[in-house]
């Protein structure tokens, strides 16, 4: 495990060849990480893989995360491993959401009148997304997709359907359905996806995991041979593990509550 100074050395060495490729290092709880901008991630990974003395040849995991209130919002993590020395290093590619700021407001129906504060970045494409999908808070509209039926069946705003959500970021930032272009997996101009270079040719193991990240977070991996949804049905709308996507499901109704207060869950 490279420690703090070791990481600084790695950072300096990478930046000598590729200036600005590594933004920051982090050493926390015995875990080493390099923070890189999204567009430079291939250089850094290639350097870490091929440089003698580093040789992090095994990509043990690739996953994405959504740090919603923070900016940049998304990150793709590459857990690299040197099998000889058993050293792990995490490369964290920061990935701003091109649809933000005001990303949360995108889910609101036009004219809903409840635009949270913080909205107001002029982002190309955001408006198109708004007009095409405006269910969000109202919750009363009939769902358009065949798959939406199940998850929206409870009705009501997402904030209400997760009453335990008090301390995590989405609740305090408000609500809102994520709106994605319903048709295409690639950007077709309706709303920009965050984009990052695919590393499938460097690490073939990234194939499924990049598809997973695309499916759950809507992160487009440029150059991926076969970027389709991994888990969700092909015609599913939205990227469910984004923090502003409602968790779905429905509240539990106990029969004993029913006679006293019919429809209390609504």
């Amino acid at each position, binding site marked *: 495990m490279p420690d703090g100074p070791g990481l600084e050395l790695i950072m300096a060495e990478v930046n000598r060849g590729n200036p600005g490729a590594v933004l920051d290092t982090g050493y926390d709880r015995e875990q080493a990480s390099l923070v890189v901008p999204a567009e430079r991630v291939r250089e850094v990974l290639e350097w870490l893989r091929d440089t003698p003395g580093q040789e992090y040849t095994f990509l043990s995991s690739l996953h994405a995360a959504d740090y919603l209130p923070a900016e940049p919002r998304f990150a793709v993590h590459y857990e690299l491993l040197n099998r000889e020395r058993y050293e792990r290093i995490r490369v964290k590619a920061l990935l701003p959401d091109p649809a933000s700021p005001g990303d949360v407001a995108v889910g609101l129906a036009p004219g809903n009148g409840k635009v949270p504060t913080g909205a107001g970045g002029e982002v190309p494409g955001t408006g198109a997304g708004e007009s095409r999908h405006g269910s969000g808070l109202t919750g009363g509209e009939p769902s358009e997709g065949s*798959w939406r039926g*199940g*998850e929206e*069946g409870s009705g009501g705003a997402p904030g209400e359907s997760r009453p335990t959500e008090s301390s995590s970021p989405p609740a305090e930032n408000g609500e809102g359905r994520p709106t994605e272009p319903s048709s295409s997996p690639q950007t077709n101009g309706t709303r920009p996806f965050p984009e990052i270079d695919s590393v499938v040719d460097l690490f073939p193991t990234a194939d499924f995991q990049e598809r997973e990240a695309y499916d759950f977070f809507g992160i487009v991996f440029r150059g991926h041979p076969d970027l389709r949804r991994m*888990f*969700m*049905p092909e015609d*599913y709308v939205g990227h*469910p593990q984004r923090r502003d*996507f*409602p*968790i*779905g*499901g*429905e*509240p*539990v109704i106990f029969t004993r509550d029913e006679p006293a207060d019919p429809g209390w869950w609504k």
Partner: protein
Amino acid sequence: MEIERIKVTPETPLEQPSSPEEFRARQLKARDMLRGDLEGADLDAYVEERVMTTTLEKVLNVARANSIFPATFGLACCAIEMMSTVSPRYDIARFGAEAFRASPRQADLLILSGRVSIKMAPVVRRIYDQMLEPKWSISMGACSSSGGMFANYAVVQGADRFMPVDVHVPGCPPRPEALIYGFNKLQRMIMGHPDPGWRARYNATGTEEWARGGAGSKPSPEAVEAYRKAREALGA
């Protein structure tokens, strides 16, 4: 006439006639049996004692209930427990259901063993539709009964949203014994004797009525009848 079956064991050898008279008596008895001279009420009594009449439907149901072919259809964790019902310790073969069929067209019981995701629900429905009548289904475990702990975007909140379910087996996952118990309930349903739940068994419904009060207020005829029956039962 009674035809007795004597079990021959070393301890009780077949009883030999002790005398020529007894042998003769036995011969006559046997001839009597073959004569067929019973008439009228005797014949009725004879038939009533020995023949059970029923409808073909009931016989079929008894046969169906005791030779169920479940579909080999596992979804998630419960599938492992479903597999262990076939294993020697639990042995669902005791109830005639050990032959799992891979094709839905040969199966007549669908055990929904595990969580049904929105991607799987159409598939499950199609498999259910492919099964031939008569068919039954057991929803095994909390997830397929109600969505269970997974109240989220991916899981169908209860399999009876998209297909009929006969028996729900609770548990996460249910023990194999629980599945067999649910299976036995299903068998009784098939045979036409559905197991009433404890509510029905103890008639656990409210016996009170709402009254307006005042001069014109009278109990309903049902209430009067129930009161009379209860008094009778008490012997009052």
